[in-house]
């Protein structure tokens, strides 16, 4: 077929607010060939999502399309009457958004809703035919037991499964174009990698063109042949993706690429350090009882944290990584002593926290502070900044004058302007807000900071600034940090030792260079292989990437809990649950068939 399927010319969208207008999409032109995958990258706020909506004529006040044409299959979408538009939208053009969990009516079965949509855009299709079509597609996006899942409501799906459902929803009407707006953004790395692989497979069999929008160039590079780079509403560069990544012509593209953290190339891993133990965690367990749905009095035991042990030394950065549902958050709550473990012990500076009296526990709490993820919800909105930072001191019984002095010192130390002291936090950026949180922890002169995804709400620039601040504070005060994160690049840059969690257990604990360069556990390799990178991935996907999703922590597989997804699983994995075994160099791994260490691998070659 000749000619583009979608041709956008000189499209502009304005944002009207309080009588002033700001251009959000500025004179954008591009074309998309049938069956092509076109990438669109740009930072948050560059106008990508507005552009995506303008393409289907779905922008509403205060946004307004002011100029341009969107010619799809020979018709200008922007000038179509509503009836003709509805024959295209949802029918010839599919749309997948960034919020899979909120994209369908939460009450109704997903199958019913997709059938409803299909029969809305294609009134000629009968109920039974529509149903068969949906079931067929649910199977093709590899949703297990589609017949049963058809009747389940969105809240019974995980984020990754729900995104597959939304792919079915977009593809069900055999569209010739699908707009995918940031679809992997809310997903865990391994799940996101699966979704990309899935779309890549589907488009080859379906001959559908994709406009693939993402804020990450490495993500786009995995799937798009050609890529547009967007900055402040303008397309600044366009070209073949591989070419663009290797030889960017524009300074903005170069800046975008330079900000992508490197994982293997030219990285010096922070070396493990010796020091006294600050935090000791021994065989900690925590489970919750959850009433079984639809039962009178039956409970399920959710084993959130199982048999976790590690030590954090003075001046050390300790990382804990894993995907959602692996028990990171529960472990954080245990480390901060917001909850107590069911079994095992947590000792701080050699003192078992469960043996402390209420009073000495409060005293001890000064030494370990928790920093949360949400910079907005974690600050009281009606309190002046300085008062906020004084508060922990006042709680610990320090006089007002002294508290004020220390709060001001802390503000200066974290880089908050003194003029802000009497202001309310309204209008402060996420980065500034996290600085306030850091100052609030800092005034107590703690020994350990527990950072629960503290930086994940920040953009790259703010993140880099705060990491520098953390390093500076560590150099002056000798802090230890526990980084709890799903961001492997951050952990690679900051942490001396890293624990990888899967279903409540630590499956591997190793120093930075071992973990990233020669990990022993197949799950660690799978995590690394799923990372979107521009550099060559050390662990190529066809060999290491996992299928499926973690099993429910309610009924764990017998034996090794990773067995159900493990590419190396063998008969004995079903019988023995591998303990966390000490390896050379102070590293640990829990696997019966672990990948060998480098020198062992060489030994095999010699044989």
């Amino acid at each position, binding site marked *: 077929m000749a000619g583009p399927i979608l041709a956008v010319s000189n499209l502009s969208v304005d944002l009207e607010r309080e009588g002033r207008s700001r251009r959000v999409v500025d004179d954008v032109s591009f074309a998309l060939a049938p069956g092509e995958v076109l990438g669109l990258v740009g930072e948050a706020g560059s106008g990508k999502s507005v552009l995506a*909506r303008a393409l*289907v004529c*779905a922008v509403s006040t205060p946004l307004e399309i002011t100029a341009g044409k969107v010619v799809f299959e020979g018709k200008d979408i922007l000038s179509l009457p509503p009836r003709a538009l*509805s024959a295209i*939208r*949802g*029918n010839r053009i599919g*749309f997948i*958004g960034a*919020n899979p969990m*909120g*994209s*369908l*009516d*939460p*009450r*109704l079965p997903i199958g019913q809703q997709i059938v*409803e*949509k299909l029969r*809305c*855009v294609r009134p000629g299709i009968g109920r039974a035919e529509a149903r068969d079509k949906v079931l067929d597609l649910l199977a093709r996006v590899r949703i297990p037991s589609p017949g049963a899942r058809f009747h389940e*409501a969105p*809240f019974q799906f995980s984020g990754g499964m729900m995104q597959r459902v939304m792919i079915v*929803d977009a593809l069900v*009407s055999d569209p010739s174009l699908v707009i995918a707006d940031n679809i992997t953004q809310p997903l865990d790395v391994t799940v996101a990698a699966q979704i990309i692989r899935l779309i890549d497979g589907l488009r080859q069999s379906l001959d559908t063109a994709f406009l693939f929008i993402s804020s990450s160039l490495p993500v786009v590079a995995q799937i798009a042949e050609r890529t547009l780079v967007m900055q402040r509403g303008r397309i600044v560069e366009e070209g073949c993706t591989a070419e663009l990544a290797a030889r960017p012509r524009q300074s903005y593209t170069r800046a975008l690429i330079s900000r992508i953290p490197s994982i293997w190339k030219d990285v010096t891993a922070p070396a493990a350090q010796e020091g006294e133990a600050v935090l000791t965690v021994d065989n900690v367990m925590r489970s919750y009882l959850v009433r079984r*749905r*639809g*039962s*009178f009095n039956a409970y399920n035991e959710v084993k959130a944290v199982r048999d976790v042990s590690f030590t954090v030394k003075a001046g050390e950065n300790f990382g804990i990584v894993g995907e959602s549902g692996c028990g990171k958050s529960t472990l954080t709550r245990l480390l901060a002593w917001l909850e107590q473990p069911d079994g095992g012990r947590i000792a701080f500076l050699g003192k078992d926290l469960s043996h402390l009296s209420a009073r000495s526990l409060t005293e001890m709490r000064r030494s370990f502070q928790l920093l949360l993820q949400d910079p907005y919800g974690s600050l009281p909105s009606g309190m002046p900044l300085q008062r906020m930072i004084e508060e922990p001191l006042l709680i610990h019984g320090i006089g007002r004058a002294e508290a004020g002095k220390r709060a001001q010192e802390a503000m200066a130390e974290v880089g908050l302007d003194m003029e802000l002291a009497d202001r309310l936090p309204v209008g402060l950026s996420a980065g500034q807000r996290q600085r306030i949180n850091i100052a609030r922890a800092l005034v107590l002169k703690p020994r350990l900071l527990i950072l629960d995804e503290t930086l994940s709400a920040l953009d790259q620039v703010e993140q880099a600034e705060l990491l520098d601040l953390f390093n500076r504070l560590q150099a002056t005060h000798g802090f230890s940090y526990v980084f709890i994160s799903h961001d492997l690049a951050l952990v690679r840059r900051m942490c001396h030792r890293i624990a990888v969690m899967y279903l409540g257990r630590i499956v591997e604990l190793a120093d930075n260079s071992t973990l990233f360069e020669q990990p022993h556990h197949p799950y660690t390799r799978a995590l690394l292989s799923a990372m979107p990178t521009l550099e060559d991935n050390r662990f190529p996907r066809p060999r290491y990437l996992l299928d499926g999703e973690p099993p429910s922590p309610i009924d764990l597989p017998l034996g090794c809990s990773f067995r159900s997804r493990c590419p190396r699983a063998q008969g004995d994995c079903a019988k023995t649950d591998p303990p966390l075994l000490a390896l050379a160099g102070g590293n640990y791994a829990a696997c019966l068939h672990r990948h060998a260490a480098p020198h062992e691998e060489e030994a095999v070659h010699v044989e």
Partner: protein
Amino acid sequence: MFVLSFLLRRLLQGALIILLVTFIIFTLLRVVPGDPARLIVGGMAPDEVVVMKAKELGLDRPIPVQFVSYLGDLVTGDLGTSFVRPKSGASLGGSSFDDATREERAKVLDLILATLPMTLQLAAVALALALLVAVPLGTLGGLYPGRWPDKLALAIGSICVSTPNFWLGIVLTLFLSVKLKLLPAIGYRGFSYTILPAIVLAVEIVPFILRTLTVSVAQVMREDFIQLAPIRGLSRSRTIFSHALGNSAIPLINLLGVQLGMLLGGVLVIEFIFDYPGLGLLTINAVLQRDFPLIQGIAIFISVMFVMINVLVDLIAMTIDPRLEY
């Protein structure tokens, strides 16, 4: 299975609540001054007769024992007999203990069941009227926030909420029955007697429904799945009727449960103003006559109704939204 276990659990909880309510009411009525035996036989009766009556009624036993035997009767549906009301319905006049006009006294349960249909009818008509006005207006208000339907809903809600019900009752009686002679107002001799008090009650309920519905519809309309619906290809009417309304119904249903409970509990002032022979009027008279068994019976009966309505409301809410689990 799911529904059965839900019902079982909720009804057990309900039974516990009712037991507690019964205990509190029973104790309160025993500790207030006044001897029920004396009240029954009349002020002029000699002391021996009072003692005899007390023995006959079991009032000389310790209070816990009395409570247990009362519970035993309660389980069989026996709420006791009124102190003052005879079976015929007329109030007692004579105060002499051997007065021949003192016939057999009425059963509390019979008194309640006789007035209940009247109150049910009033509550149903009032609720229907309120829904008829408030649901369309509230939904429109939620669909067009900040525009005229929203403002109209707010205005009507404000006017209704600030109108005192006793005043409205009197004014409506004056205009509709006395001046225009459209509707009867006082007493009960047919369905038309329900309309005026129902209007007054509806005016009282409308603002709550309006407010709840406007807010919940507006909130649901901002949800992603509603915003995405046109891009997915759904028409606006389909989006609203099959997705937006269902999702905004839950708060409304919870509200209606509470309102219905209050209506059934007897709308004392309204029934009194219109002399409407419902549960409310019965309650007022029982209080004025110090008819302790009747007061106690009504209170327990109403708490049972409240529990049942709440179970029902939760069951309906669960059917609408399977995410909910109580």
